[in-house]
């Protein structure tokens, strides 16, 4: 994908009213914004409205942008604030500390119990996954991934969406969600283990058909 110009150039062009530049960032960032919005609100339509509201706020707030974060981070923050307000109205926001994030991420029955000669080791290795060339349709795997993301507890979904889907670094995600590095890692770990488990389920089902 073509690189966006550096932030200072972007911001100057946007302030000058260059609509080609606006269309560029609009098309480049809206997909990620939609996914992020979807983590807070209950429907696709609602998410699209949150993204629209966000861009309107960006247009109106451009002259106030101070460049203390990147432009994209600033836009993402506006989105999370907008989406949280809306999620609250929809009674969907879970307080950032209320979900239980303890306990093992892999079913304990997959491991040998105490008293076994090899306690804590796999009974059976995780089943092999087909290589991508083995005909598993890309869009089917992607549908599985979307479903798995949708089933995650909210905080885990937010973290894995930002980190793995959007490719943000851990520091940015901690700042954006106002959580500690350790907390971020726990949420990411649980989310990734869940997604891996769902893919395992799917590949196992497909292999046995």
């Amino acid at each position, binding site marked *: 994908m073509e690189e966006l110009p550096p932030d200072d150039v972007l911001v100057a062009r946007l302030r*000058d*009213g260059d*609509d080609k530049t*606006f*269309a560029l960032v*609009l*098309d480049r960032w*809206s*997909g*990620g914004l*939609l*996914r992020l919005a979807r983590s807070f609100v209950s429907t696709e339509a609602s998410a*699209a409205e949150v*993204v*629209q509201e966000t*861009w*309107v706020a960006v*247009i*109106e707030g*451009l002259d106030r942008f101070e460049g203390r974060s990147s432009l994209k981070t600033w836009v993402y923050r506006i989105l999370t604030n907008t989406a949280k307000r809306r999620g609250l109205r929809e009674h969907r926001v879970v307080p950032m500390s209320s979900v239980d994030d303890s306990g*093992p*991420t*892999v079913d*304990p029955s997959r*491991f040998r119990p105490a008293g076994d000669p*090899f*306690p*804590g*080791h*796999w009974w*059976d*290795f*995780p089943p*092999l*996954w087909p290589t991508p060339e083995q005909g598993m349709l890309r869009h089917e*795997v*992607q549908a599985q*991934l*979307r479903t798995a*993301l949708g089933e995650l507890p909210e905080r885990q979904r937010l973290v*894995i969406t930002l980190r*793995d*889907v959007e*490719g943000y670094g*851990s520091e940015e995600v901690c700042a954006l969600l106002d959580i500690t*590095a350790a907390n971020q*890692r726990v949420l*990411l*770990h649980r989310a*990734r*283990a869940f*997604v*891996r488990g769902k*893919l*395992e389920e799917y590949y196992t089902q497909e292999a046995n058909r």
Partner: protein
Amino acid sequence: MNDLDCREFVEQVTAFLEHALDPEAEQRLVDHLALCDGCERYLDQVRRSVTDLRDLPADALPDETRAALLEAFRARTE
């Protein structure tokens, strides 16, 4: 096998991938990986899940929303 077991290994996979373990803990994981095909496979599958997530195509804004926003942007400077 060293003293780290598979049940512990799977819980440290993310910390390992984030380079968040102290050198000693990291070495235990590396040593375990060298001996355990099951955990090597588990780690690979986590990595592959992450790559597949990164490749998820993004949705696009509805056309009318996009048009309305471009309109709003143009109106800003008028």
